[in-house]
């Protein structure tokens, strides 16, 4: 029962993410979503053997604290706080996000789940978060918000990964988390370079290479 609440919360965070115009707020919400997903395996009632605990802890630390810390550090260098008129207006992106959630539910309907087991809501939520991540990536102009979009996309995939928590060996889970962390880290470095080179994080300047 608890896990259904957590999942619905994640879907709600999706909507808030799409609607916020302030970058600080979107980082916080993304971190909150990360923490939610980190705690989710504990509520699945699969018993508390070490490897699940370890996983949850690692997820919470990486997604909840370390990545937002990186993003905020990158943000501090450039004193902009608001995503000014992104490619798609906020209302339109909200509607698109809702449409995406609906579609992911339809798609999840086509994918038969293993009978029993608490994973009923997992697939639609995972696809919805994935779609929101994509939406953020596509519609936002600032580099930081694009990285947040990528983070949300990874959260969606991580959520789906939780369904296989007991099947997937520990090695792969850590590998996935590690790569997410390194990915964000490298993106952080590149963003610093961008802010130095283009003295703004707006990706409009980043469009000179064309055919």
């Amino acid at each position, binding site marked *: 029962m608890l896990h259904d609440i957590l999942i619905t919360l994640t879907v709600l965070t999706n909507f808030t993410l799409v609607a916020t115009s302030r970058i600080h707020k979107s980082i916080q919400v993304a971190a909150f979503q990360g923490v939610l997903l980190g705690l989710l395996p504990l509520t699945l009632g699969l018993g508390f053997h070490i490897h699940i605990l370890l996983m949850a802890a690692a997820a919470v630390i990486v997604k909840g604290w370390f990545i937002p810390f990186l993003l905020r550090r990158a943000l501090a260098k450039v004193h902009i706080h608001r995503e000014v008129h992104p490619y798609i207006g906020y209302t339109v992106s909200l509607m698109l996000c809702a449409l995406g959630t609906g579609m992911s539910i339809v*798609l999840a309907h086509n994918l038969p789940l293993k009978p029993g087991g608490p994973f009923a809501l997992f697939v639609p939520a995972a696809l919805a978060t994935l779609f929101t991540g*994509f939406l953020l990536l596509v*519609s936002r102009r600032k580099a930081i918000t694009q990285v947040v979009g990528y983070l949300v996309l990874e959260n969606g995939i991580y959520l789906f990964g939780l369904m296989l928590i007991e099947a997937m060996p520990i090695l792969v889970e850590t590998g996935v988390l590690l790569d997410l962390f390194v990915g964000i880290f490298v993106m952080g470095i590149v963003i610093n370079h961008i802010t130095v080179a283009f003295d703004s994080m707006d990706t409009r300047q*980043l*469009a000179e290479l*064309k055919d």
Partner: protein
Amino acid sequence: MLAAMGILSLACAGIGLVPVLMAKPLDRVVSTLSGTEQVLPSLDNLVNLSWLTVLAIPLLVVGFILWKWAAATPRGKEQPTWGCGYLAPNARMQYTASSFADGLVQGMGWVLWPKIQGGRVRGFFPFPRRFQSHVPDPVLDRVADPGLNGAAFLLSGLRFLQAGHMSIYLMYILLTLLVLLIWMVV
């Protein structure tokens, strides 16, 4: 530079003088092309090629003898070519290749559509006029060149697909994913 052309012309002369050598390989090629059943008669019994060589020899021998005889003619003083008494012929009056082919080009005008600049001289004291005619290569100039340029122009119309904005590139990925998933579900 001339060596290559020299070899080719020697090859042509060789085939001309001794065509029998070519008959065997040509037959083999034709037989492989036409598969098992022998559709075309082999070159040998169609035309008696050895006679060609036999006749080529007298042609060359007679030619050589006559050449010797004609070259041995007592020569007078070398004169410039007789221009029917025109005193100041210049290079531009020489018979050019396009004027050589003018008869055929006019005759086949409805096919070749020669490009002609400048035309007839009008009036009694006409001022100097230029005339230029040129037969464009029907395939290259009429079909290939405009066709390829047109295609290139059309294709450059599609250049906006790579316009540099990253969000559009990510949209491509999203759209392909959606299309494939819908295609899979349907």
